[in-house]
């Protein structure tokens, strides 16, 4: 099990990570989510042994890893752009760590073939990295990282460099592959979709500090604060009387602030809130509205495609309690 105990990291006295404590049980996938500059990559590099911690400790199974160099940690690191060795073929890239461990040739070849199959690249062994597409390169990088059955796999925005469709597909594959291999993994990303698609647990990092950590659904349902809610993909955060109005409409216990997803309010003649449509825009599944709700102000809402309201029309809105989250003071 990986444990971070009050880990702090600073560059020239400027703190990049401050007193972060986390636990990652074996077999789980933890996503560290944070905007750029939040210190998440620094944290990952510290776990890999590429950065020194200036305070606290990185601990594996109770043992402090300070002083253990990267190559002795047994943590495989996979970069955003793969960092394949350009002069080595795909098979030699994947088999790199096996050769380091002097795995017998035939056995290594078998393992490489298995891994290539696992990542869906059977028969690519003799190609050079330069001839592969971005997605293929990431798959090779993944296979290379998995080859040694690392006790921990570190993923640095593994899908960010890929285009949207490929990313979605590969995210699913990645999850499957990690599950299948039973790999413990630490993923850092700025993309909450990527985090949701791959991870079991989520830790949110902001300005070097851990603001929230927990099972993915739990974090999702109750973001720790406004900024976290927005970062997790909530469209707006309402406060004061506006929040009280919506909370009441949703039938939830009182809360000082409420994070609202874009689809939390929907047009429903029986809805508790009333407002005037300011703008409407068609999307494939629904119509997106901006509605001026009395006592709340402008909010996002959705309507079905069958009878979309026009701007200027008065509508009633229903609140879906599953798509809002109360935020503690």
């Amino acid at each position, binding site marked *: 099990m990986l444990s971070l105990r*009050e880990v*702090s990291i600073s*560059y*020239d006295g400027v703190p990049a990570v401050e*007193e*972060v*404590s*986390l*636990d990652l049980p074996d077999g789980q996938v933890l996503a560290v989510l944070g905007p750029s500059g939040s210190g998440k990559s620094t944290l990952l*590099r510290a776990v*890999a*042994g*590429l*950065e*020194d*911690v*200036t*305070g*606290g400790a990185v601990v594996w199974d109770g043992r402090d890893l*300070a*002083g*253990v*160099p*990267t*190559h*002795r*940690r*047994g*943590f*495989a*690191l*996979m*970069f955003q752009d793969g*960092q394949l*060795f*350009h*002069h*080595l073929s795909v098979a*030699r890239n994947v088999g*790199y*760590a096996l*050769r*380091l*461990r002097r795995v017998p040739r035939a056995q290594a070849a078998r393992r490489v073939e298995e891994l290539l199959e696992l990542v869906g690249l059977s028969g690519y062994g003799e190609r050079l990295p330069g001839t592969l597409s971005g997605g293929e390169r990431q798959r090779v990088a993944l296979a*290379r*990282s998995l*080859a*040694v059955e690392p006790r921990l796999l*570190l993923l640095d925005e593994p899908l960010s460099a890929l285009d949207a469709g490929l990313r979605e597909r590969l995210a699913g594959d990645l999850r499957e592959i990690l599950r299948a291999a039973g790999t413990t993994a630490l993923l850092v990303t700025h993309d909450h979709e990527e985090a949701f698609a791959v991870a079991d647990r989520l830790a949110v990092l902001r300005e070097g*500090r*851990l*603001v*929230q*950590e*927990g099972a993915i659904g*739990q974090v999702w349902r109750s973001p720790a604060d406004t900024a976290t809610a927005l970062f997790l993909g909530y469209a707006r955060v309402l406060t004061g009387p506006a929040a009280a109005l919506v909370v009441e409409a949703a039938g939830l216990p009182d809360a000082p602030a409420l994070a609202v997803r874009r689809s939390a309010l929907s047009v429903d003649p029986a809805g508790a809130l009333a407002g005037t449509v300011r703008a409407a825009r068609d999307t494939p599944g629904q119509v997106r509205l901006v509605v001026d709700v009395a006592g709340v102000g402008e909010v996002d809402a959705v309507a079905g495609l069958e009878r979309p309201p026009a701007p200027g029309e008065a509508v009633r809105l229903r609140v879906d309690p599953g798509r809002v989250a109360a935020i503690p003071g």
Partner: protein
Amino acid sequence: MRVPSGPGAPRGRQAPRGRAGLGRLLTLAALAVVPVLALGLFFVVPVSGMLARGLVVDGVVDPGAVLEVLGRPRVHRVLWFTAWSASAATALAVLLGLPAAYVLYRLDLPLRRLLRALLLVPFVLPTVVVGVAFKQLLRESGPLGFLGLEESAVAIVLGLAFFNVSVVIRVVGGAWESLDPRPGEAAAALGASPRQVFRTVTLPALRPAIVSAASVVFLFCASGFGVVLTLGGLRWSTVETEIYLLTTNLLDLQAAAALSILQLVVVSVLLALSARLRAVPGGASRVVARPRPVRRGDWPWLGATAVLLVYVGAPIATLVAGSLRVDGAWSLGNYRALGTAGSEQALLVPVTEALANSVRVAVDATWMALLLGGLVALVVTRRSRGRAERRVRGALDAFFMLPLGVSAVTVGFGFLVTLGRGPVDLRDSALLVPIAQALVALPLVVRTLAPVLAGIDDRQRQAAASLGAGPLRTLVTVDLPVVWKPLLAAAGFAFAVSLGEFGATSFLAREDRPTVPVVIFRLIGHPGAMNYGMALAASVVLAATTALVMLAVERLRVGSVGAF
């Protein structure tokens, strides 16, 4: 859910630095210790010894005397001329070297390997021999006499650039060869003309290499004193010729020390400037690009390269022609005479034996320069964590360039006054000559390797480490495949420096085993047509040997190292 500690929570204990950090620093120190010790013993100690002799008068340091020397109008003139001639020569070398670097490293031309090898030849030719060739071309009755350049400052600049243009071609060519062509292609796709692509994409990417080469060339020019004496007559003085005069003739160590300090200060400022200019944000990705066929748009480059070839080729051709003349007729007599140590001539040993001596010294100088230079390049290009570490690396980088900028006379005499003390008398060591040469070649090795090492994405090394590769393995897997070719080029450079070096080592007591340059100097230092012819022939032999070694280096294609 864990509660993160807020701003009000007590601060966790701040460990001074992890053991890993300490280990890193220790590794850095361990890598740097050998080169630093070598440079300390064979450069810092001798130079400070000489400075101390000059500055400490009757046990008291007298800074006023230094200021007095530096205030002399003559010193100002000399300093100005040194800076002017070295700058002009550096500019000329870069201007001529860039097109040739492009043509010889980027285009698929027949004979380009041979040309690359030949262009290194000036580097090893003895100054005095080239001086004669230049004068034959430039004097009033010569083919270029109409230019009126004889004994002019322009002749000095031409001579300095002649000797150093190969540095630009090699260093820049090496960087150009491995430049990723895609950004250029992208720019072209965005509508940039070839000229705009060059100015906006290629040139910025080459800047570190160009600055590297230019700073080395500048130092060579500013401290190259043979060329100034030979081509300028005595009308022109540089800081280097002044120090030579003050030390070897007047024994005015005080003034010499003042000038040496001036040299050190100027060189340090220059190095700091060039380090700043060399820094590129992000670092360039490197690929092995295939040379491409010549296109129509290449003709300006080819034209400029042709000019360079004539410029470098004409003095060499004059020299070769001279070596083939005996009593006004074409003959191989001069070459035959080199085979025997006849009593008629001033030949000390058959030139074959001198060549063997030269190669022996050069092998030693080369491995020393590669070992030290490789370590230095590694140390200075590793990514720094923190400003202090970056500063230390930057300072180390500049430190190893210093020997180029400091007078060989000062270092040579410094050896004598300092290395006699201590447990062994190093002054008589036969290794002193290769060590001195290795120090001269060291900056070239570092400057050849460092840009390439710095261009490697550090995450490649991290990827290897995270897969379980130790530092050595990482070096072999990630660094070596990329740096292998430049390493060979650097070896060639060091070898050539050693083969041709005479000035610096002539101050060192050496074993009485004459090298080729010693034989050449001796031959040309005495009257008689045969002596002169043989000096030219020996120079041609030296040049041909260098060219052959370079050609062999060029032919070695070892792309598979590291693919274990």
